[in-house]
């Protein structure tokens, strides 16, 4: 898998963050701020998992 294919995650992160935030709050400003925090959390989590898997792969080969 090439690094360019990680871009497929971007629309998913945006969609999931916005929809999740919108189901928790009604005012738009809270939806946006919660969506940004969720997106950062998701992106960070995926980055950590990617780095762990990449390190594991490099160590095993």
């Amino acid at each position, binding site marked *: 898998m090439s690094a360019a294919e990680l871009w497929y995650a971007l629309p998913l992160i945006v969609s*999931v963050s916005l929809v999740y935030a919108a189901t928790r709050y009604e*005012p738009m400003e809270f*939806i946006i701020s919660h969506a940004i925090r969720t997106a950062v959390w998701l992106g960070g989590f995926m980055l950590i998992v990617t780095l762990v898997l990449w390190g594991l792969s490099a160590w095993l080969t």
Partner: protein
Amino acid sequence: MAKENDEIVVNLKDPAIAGVLAWLLPGAGHWYQHRRAKAVIFFVCIFGTFMYGMFLGEGRVVYAQWDGPEFRRYPFLCQAAVGLPSLPAVLLAWSGGESFFGTKWYVPPAIIGGKSPELDELHLRLNRRFELGTVFTMIAGLLNVLAIYDAVCGPAYSVARRSRKEGDASETGDGDEAGEGEHPQQHLADA
């Protein structure tokens, strides 16, 4: 700008109708409730994710098939939650149709003698885009489940905020938002 102790009234109108509309078309239930901004968010995000998945899979990733243990299309259980955009798959599976307005969208791959060369060809040609398209459309369906819940019951933290106001700390949710006192009180209003 909403501030602490602001009261936000969410008029859910008829939650049953809103729920059905939200299932039929992402955002339609919220539009019916005059929650227009959220309707646009849900429509763009959920319908957009679904259509992007369909684009990746060239329209062949959403189909209903339940033939024997090898050809059960479990992902469709999630995809069906998007409502109308996935319903042509049910109609085609039911009627045995082989085209959708002149295209192969939603058409289940043919099974011949317990095998499906057409499905093999799809996997070979689309490669990982078949799986990506499947995942995108599944996630769109699961997101619409959240949107339906929001149309029927309102925002998740309405009850928690009300409970906190009443001093019942045991009902303030999972603690995820602890300390975020700047959020408004949100109340649900009957039609």
